[in-house]
């Protein structure tokens, strides 16, 4: 080994100490150490399970509260409850939200974050983080415990602070109806706890920008690969992909299921399948020689190139990996070592499958009619306020009794 390379090796150790002997740390490795990956990544099944558990726990709490309230009121006027036993009866009165109703209700409130963010002229980042906070809160809580309205406002307020877009509480509440400073400030800490004190949210916009640059590098240089693709074409692809992220991803749950680069690629694929596919093929299937070169000489521009490749390799999605924490690193290494045509094809195909799945889920946003939401809203109110529900019923039956 020449002196020059020896020094370089030592210097590289400086960079990566104390993991000196390991391979370079890629963006992908860094993402795997983020709380977003460690705490907030789910498979579709585990996400459903978590939400069902939150709904069930909420129902249990609401039921308990209902029972206690019912018994208190019953004790005050036992004769009324005896006479109207078929209406004033626990099973009949108990009002809870089903899992599906709660999901619809939460979607409705998630959508409401968008106009609020717009009203305050908040950057996209704040809006996305607010949505993330709101959704995460209801992975461990239920609307039958915390009404979503103020949780939504507080998520926006906290997200604004976390994303460095400070709004004073006074100017914030000035714009809201029937909400006081205390309503929000009291919830801020509760939300922070439900977030398990993790506030940093990685969104797909930064990787999207990275891909926009890399598309140019791969598809336009040294000479254009596709006769009808220019900087302008890619610019418009990038803009449309941003719009798609804004319209679809914000409202869906893909952020819990896929990594930000996967979501970014999904956006580009959905906007222009032909160009994106060409890019992916070029990256995976036509670069055997270049990939070998990257492995051997880890220098300059090529290094960056390999980083982009690692970024894509991260596609072994959060979704596919059952045992993500151990499994994934191996997968990444494996990918690097096997540079055979077959394994590259495999990677490419896995990636496209992942992207398609992401698009599909992103498009499955369920919207509900106003009437439906109104009905859920009414139920939620009674689940949270059983006293109002029972008293209303008592009034009703006694009134009927006197008039008839």
């Amino acid at each position, binding site marked *: 080994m020449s002196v020059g390379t020896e*020094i*370089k090796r*030592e*210097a*590289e150790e*400086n*960079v990566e*100490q*104390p993991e000196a002997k390991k391979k370079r*740390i890629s*963006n992908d490795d*860094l993402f795997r*150490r*983020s*709380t977003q990956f*460690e*705490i907030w990544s789910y498979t579709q099944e585990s996400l459903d399970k978590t939400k069902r558990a939150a709904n069930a*726990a909420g129902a249990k709490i609401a039921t308990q509260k209902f029972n206690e309230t019912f018994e208190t009121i019953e004790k005050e006027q036992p004769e009324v409850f005896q006479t109207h036993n078929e209406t004033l009866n626990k099973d009949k009165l108990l009002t809870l939200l089903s899992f599906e109703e709660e999901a619809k209700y939460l979607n409705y409130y998630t959508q409401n974050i968008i106009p609020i963010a717009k009203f305050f002229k908040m*950057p996209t*980042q704040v809006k996305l983080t607010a949505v993330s906070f709101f959704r995460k809160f209801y992975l*461990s*809580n239920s609307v039958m415990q*915390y009404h979503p309205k103020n949780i939504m406002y507080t998520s926006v*307020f*906290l997200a604004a*602070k*976390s994303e*460095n877009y*400070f709004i*004073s*509480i006074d100017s914030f509440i000035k714009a809201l109806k029937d909400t006081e400073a205390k309503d*929000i*400030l009291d919830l*801020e*800490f*509760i*939300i*922070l*706890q*439900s977030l*398990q*004190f*993790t*506030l*940093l949210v990685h969104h797909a*916009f*930064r990787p999207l*920008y990275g891909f926009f640059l890399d598309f140019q590098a791969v598809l336009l240089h040294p000479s254009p690969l596709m006769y009808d693709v220019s900087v302008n074409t890619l610019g418009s692809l990038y803009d449309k992909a941003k719009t798609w992220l804004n319209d679809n991803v914000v409202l869906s749950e893909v952020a819990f299921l896929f990594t930000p680069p996967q979501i970014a690629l999904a956006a580009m694929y959905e906007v222009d399948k032909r160009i994106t596919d060409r890019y992916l093929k070029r990256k995976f299937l036509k670069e055997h020689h270049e990939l070998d070169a990257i492995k051997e000489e880890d220098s300059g521009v090529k290094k960056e190139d390999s980083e982009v490749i690692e970024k894509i390799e991260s596609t072994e999605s959060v979704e596919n990996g059952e045992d993500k924490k151990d499994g994934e690193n191996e997968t990444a290494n494996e990918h690097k070592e096997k540079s055979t045509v077959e394994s590259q094809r495999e990677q490419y195909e896995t990636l496209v499958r992942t992207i398609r799945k992401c698009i599909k889920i992103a498009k499955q946003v369920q919207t509900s009619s106003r009437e439906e939401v109104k009905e859920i809203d009414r139920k939620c109110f009674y689940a949270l306020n059983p006293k109002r529900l029972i008293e209303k019923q008592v009034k009703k039956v006694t009134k009927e009794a006197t008039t008839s």
Partner: protein
Amino acid sequence: MATTSTTTAKTVPDSIVQNKYSKDRKVGEGTYAVVYLGNQVSTKRRIAIKEIKTGIFKDGLDMSAIREVKYLQELKHPNVIELVDVFSTTNNLNLVLEFLPCDLEVLIKDTSIVFKSSDIKSWLLMTLRGIHHCHRNFILHRDLKPNNLLLAPDGQLKIADFGLARSLGNPNEDLSSNVVTRWYRSPELLFGARHYTGAVDIWSIGIIFAELMLRTPYLPGKDDVDQLDVTFRALGTPTEQIWPNVSSLPMYNALRVYPPPSRQELRNRFSAATEKALDLLISMTQLDPSRRCDSTQALLHEFFTENPRPTEPENLPKKKEKVKSEDELDESNKRRKI
């Protein structure tokens, strides 16, 4: 990682906290937090508990507290202060941090301690490794100064105080130029730049490097205007030639024009520095941020591979009395237990 089991919004009663961590005595008070010394009961490990005051600010949770929690949760590195745990007691947010009994400012000021050039190299290297980890996670520290470089009992240097940190990333996003303690503030910040990069942290580290060699602050401006003068007297006034478009920055004024220092002038000022040390210093204190080296380039600099090798952390100078008083404290603790 927050190891608290708070998946639901419940508050841990104080008694449980006291079972898990002991709070021994108050060691300091910042603008938004009180810091206590304590132990993690299960491991006997010494820790610092930073109790963040909540409910006293008109606008809820303090921004500095939010930033500190946000970034420390993500950054796990031997040269970044470790956030051991986060828990809440009634109305308080508690950050459990590794215990770091000393900081670089204390050592620099203690004239009874001699710094060898290998010691300086070691501290600089650890600072750069820590900031490299921040930057590759797209996080800017924005308040690097000797007082925020804390020292562990085993000599490891840890970057602390992320109250001003923020994510870097969205192209075209406006950033505040009112960051970084004045003496360590880069020229682009002094000129009020709204777009900047990790180069602001590299500048601060360059100035800290100089301070380690000089044993006195390198660019101690008396106020913001004086800071410009002090900075450019030492390093030359930036012109359009050496820094294209500098004159379009908001606070750029036709300043007194100082010539850039000659190599010989720098040699005279930093008489103990090797040529490679000077090269690195010059590279980190380039006036034009785009010409300044980044953390990778700094770490790959030949200064770190030339002799002498950086001192092993455990052999670095320590604050003498401070170490003693800690021992005494341990002694008295033992005695109390017996």
